[in-house]
């Protein structure tokens, strides 16, 4: 299951939340808050 980290700490991605990889694939202007991981790790 994808995991990642933001300024709030680490997280496991809930199944209903798109991964950053999927967002980029969908053509979104993905922007990460300061200190956030660039990708969820698979």
């Amino acid at each position: 299951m994808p995991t990642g980290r933001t300024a709030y700490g680490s997280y496991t991605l809930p199944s209903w939340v798109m991964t950053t990889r999927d967002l980029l694939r969908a053509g979104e202007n993905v922007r990460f808050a300061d200190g956030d991981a660039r990708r969820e790790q698979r």
Partner: protein
Amino acid sequence: MTELRLSDRLAAVVDALPLRPGVRVLEIGGAPGSAAKAVARRMGDGHILVIDRSAKGVAQIERNAAAEIAAGLLSVRHVAAEDFELLPGEPRFDIAFAIRVGALDGRHPQAGVRARQRIAAALTPTGQLFIDGGDPLRSVKLRDA
């Protein structure tokens, strides 16, 4: 106005929001401003405030939505959802939405508790918060019935 490509998913999100002329909208975590710019085109003389906890994100919105900001349709504030408060005399918002915001989509539940409290306090009594993960949106319960 600066054009940002709006993905099909974000276009569907904007389509699903109950926008109407004069509506006041709060977007949480809205950088780089793609969705907010699309909302600004659909709310007549309404207003959208975009908040973001990232200083870089706020700068991106200010750059990308300079025309909407100058026209008074859109404003930007550097604040996290869990710290957000209305300014003195600032009217409440009719709609709030947050797309892939960790404090609200289940990634950071503790931050989410406080964020939902702050958002509820900034909405009208009938105001609604929408997040992604539905079809394409789902409404978040903010107060007891």
